[in-house]
C-alpha cells in the first residue's frame, strides 16, 4: 500500500524534503525550533522554498511566531492557498489550523478522528506547490497526530526525516527517549537532536544559569548514537521576536511596520539564537545531502 498514488503523494510530489519536528514533551520549543529551522532553511539559498505545516491542532503557535496570525487562508480552484509569511516573494508558505479559527481565543476541541481528517486535508488539499523543504511542527506526545502523519505520509516515506528537540531536564529527556522509540517503531530516520533552553545568560551580570540544567541532550545523543545538532540557550530576544516582534512590554498587537517585505526575518537575524542556528542548519543540510 505504501507506494500507491494518493491525493497526498500527488500534492507533495514536488516537495523534496519533509522534516518533522518532534519532542515528546510540551513547551521545550518545538514550534520555535520549527520556525527557526524554516527561517534558516529559507536563508540558506536565495531561491530556497520552504513550507511549514503546523499540526498542533489544539494549540497552534506558528502563526503568531511568524507574525501572521491576523491572516487567513483562501480557497482556490486548486485547493487552499497557504499564507506566505514573506509576502510577495512567496518562498515561505505556512498552513495552520490557527488560520481557520474565527477568533484567536477559540478552542479546537477535537477528538482523534477529526484531527486525523484535518491532517489529511492539510497534506492533500493545500496548494504547497514546489518546496525544497516542508517543516512539520507537531504537538507533544506520540498519539493521534503523529500516527496520522505517518499514515498519510506513507507514500512519501523516502523523503521523511525528523529532528528531536529536548531541554536538558530529566523529565524532558525521558519524553525525548519515548519520542525516539516512536521514530524507531515507525522507521523514521532521525537527523539529529537539538538541546533547547540550555542555560540562561543573566542580563545584569552575564552569569550563565542552567535554568533547566544542562548537557543532557548531548549525553543522550551520544548514548543513542544520534547526531547532536547543537544547543540553544534561553534567548529572551527570541521570545520577544517570536511573540509579536515588539520590544519590552509593547502591549498591543502588531503595530504597522511594513517597511520591508519580511521584517521578522531581519529582527530574527539579529538575535544570538540566529547565529547558533546557522550551525544547526548546516548540520541538518549535511545529513539531508547524505541521504
Amino acid at each position, binding site marked *: 500500500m505504501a507506494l500507491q498514488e494518493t491525493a497526498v503523494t500527488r500534492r507533495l510530489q514536488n516537495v523534496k524534503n519533509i522534516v518533522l519536528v518532534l519532542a515528546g514533551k510540551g513547551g521545550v520549543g518545538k514550534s520555535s525550533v520549527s520556525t527557526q529551522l524554516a527561517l534558516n532553511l529559507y536563508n540558506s539559498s536565495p531561491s530556497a522554498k520552504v513550507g511549514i505545516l503546523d499540526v498542533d491542532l489544539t494549540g497552534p503557535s506558528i502563526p503568531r511566531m511568524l507574525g501572521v496570525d491576523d491572516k487567513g487562508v483562501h480557497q482556490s480552484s486548486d485547493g487552499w492557498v497557504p499564507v506566505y509569511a514573506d509576502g510577495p516573494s512567496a518562498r515561505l508558505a505556512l498552513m495552520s489550523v490557527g488560520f481557520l479559527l474565527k477568533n*484567536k481565543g477559540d478552542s479546537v*476541541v477535537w*477528538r*482523534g478522528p477529526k484531527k486525523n481528517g484535518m491532517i489529511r486535508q492539510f497534506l492533500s488539499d493545500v496548494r504547497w506547490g514546489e518546496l525544497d523543504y516542508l517543516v512539520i511542527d507537531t504537538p*507533544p506526545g*506520540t*498519539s493521534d497526530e503523529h500516527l496520522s502523519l505517518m499514515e498519510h505520509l506513507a507514500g512519501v516515506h523516502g523523503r521523511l526525516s525528523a529532528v528531536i528537540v529536548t531541554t536538558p531536564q530529566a523529565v524532558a529527556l525521558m519524553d525525548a527517549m519515548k519520542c525516539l522509540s516512536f521514530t524507531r517503531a515507525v522507521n523514521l530516520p532521525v537527523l539529529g537532536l537539538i538541546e533547547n533552553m540550555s542555560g540562561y545568560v*543573566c542580563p545584569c551580570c552575564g552569569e550563565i544559569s542552567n535554568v533547566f540544567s544542562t548537557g543532557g541532550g548531548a549525553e543522550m545523543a551520544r548514548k543513542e548514537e544520534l547526531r547532536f545538532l547543537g544547543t540553544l540557550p534561553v534567548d529572551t530576544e527570541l521570545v520577544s521576536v517570536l*511573540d509579536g516582534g515588539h520590544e519590552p512590554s509593547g502591549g498591543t498587537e502588531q503595530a504597522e511596520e511594513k517597511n520591508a517585505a519580511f521584517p521578522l526575518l531581519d529582527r530574527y537575524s539579529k538575535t544570538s539564537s540566529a547565529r547558533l542556528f546557522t550551525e544547526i542548519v548546516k548540520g541538518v543540510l549535511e545529513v539531508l545531502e547524505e541521504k
Partner: protein
Amino acid sequence: MGDAPSPDPKSIPSNAPEHCPGTESELAGKSDACAGCDNKDVCASGATKLPDPALPLIKERMSSVKRKILILSGKGGVGKSTFTAQLGWAFAADDDTQTGIMDLDICGPSIPTILGIASEQVHSSASGWSPVYVQDNMAVMSVGFMLPTAKDAIMWRGPKKNGLISQFLKDVDWGALDYLLVDTPPGTSDEHLSIVQYLKESGIDGAVLITTPQEVALQDVRREIDFCRKVGIRIIGLVENMSGFVCPSCKGESQIFRPTTGGAKRLAEETGIELLGAVPLDPRIGMSADYGVSFLDEYPDSPATTAYLDIIDRIKDILGDN
C-alpha cells in the same frame, strides 16, 4: 473550513468518522457521515441517548472523593505537572488530608519522576488497582507505573487513551480522598473531553489554569478558557509560572519569558478570571522535579515557595476549605 456547525464535542465518540453529527443528535445513525461507522446501528437504535455504562461505576468510586480539581494549561511545558505535585505535597503536609494525584498525560507522564516514584509499579487487588503511595496520605496513579521501561513510547490513539482514563477513575482503589488532583496533557482533546465527560455526574470542583508570561502561552490559555466555558467547568483561577528570574549570582531580576502583551495579569483582567499568583523561575524547581523531591520542603526560603504557598492557600479559600 466547509464544516457544518460543529456538534457538541462531548457527544462525539472517539471512533466516530470526521463528520459525526454527535450521538445525541436527531441525525445520529442516520446522516451521510454515519455510513460505515461502527456505531451506526447503536446510534440509530437510540441507545446512545442513554448514559454510558461506566458512569455509574465511576460515580460510585468518586463518591468518596470530596474535591476534584483539574490542572490545565493549553500549552505544554508551562509547569502543570510541577504545580500539581507542589499542590499535592502542600495538601498532604496536613496528616489528616488524604490527597490523590491522577496523571492523565498518557504519552508523556512526568508525575512519577517529579514525585520520585518512577520505579514503582501498580498492583491489583480485589478492590481494584492500588495506586502508588508517596506517603501515607498521598496516592498517585499514572501510566508511567505500567510501562516496562521509561523509554517505551505509548503510541495510542484517542479511544485507547479514553479507555485507560475511564479505568483510572473506576478501577483504581482511591479510597476516601479529600482532594483528587488531575494533571492533564497539553491541548484540548481526547483526554480533556473524556475526563469532563466521565466526571460530569460526580462533579468537578474547578480547574486551575497554568500559563507562562509570553503571548504564545497566553494564546493557548485563552483557548483553554474557551474550552472550560464550553464544557461548563468552573475556573478557580490562573497561575503565572516562570514569571521573572532571579539570578543566583547578582540577585538581579530579569524576564526570561517577557510578558509582551501584559502577561497573565492582563489576561486575568480581560477575562474576569482571578490571577491566583505568579511563581518566579527558580532553577531549583526544575532540579527538584528531576530528583523527585518536594521543592517546598527543600527550599522553604525561596520566593517561589512563598508564591506557591500563597496560591495554594488562595485555592483553599476559594473552595471554602480554609
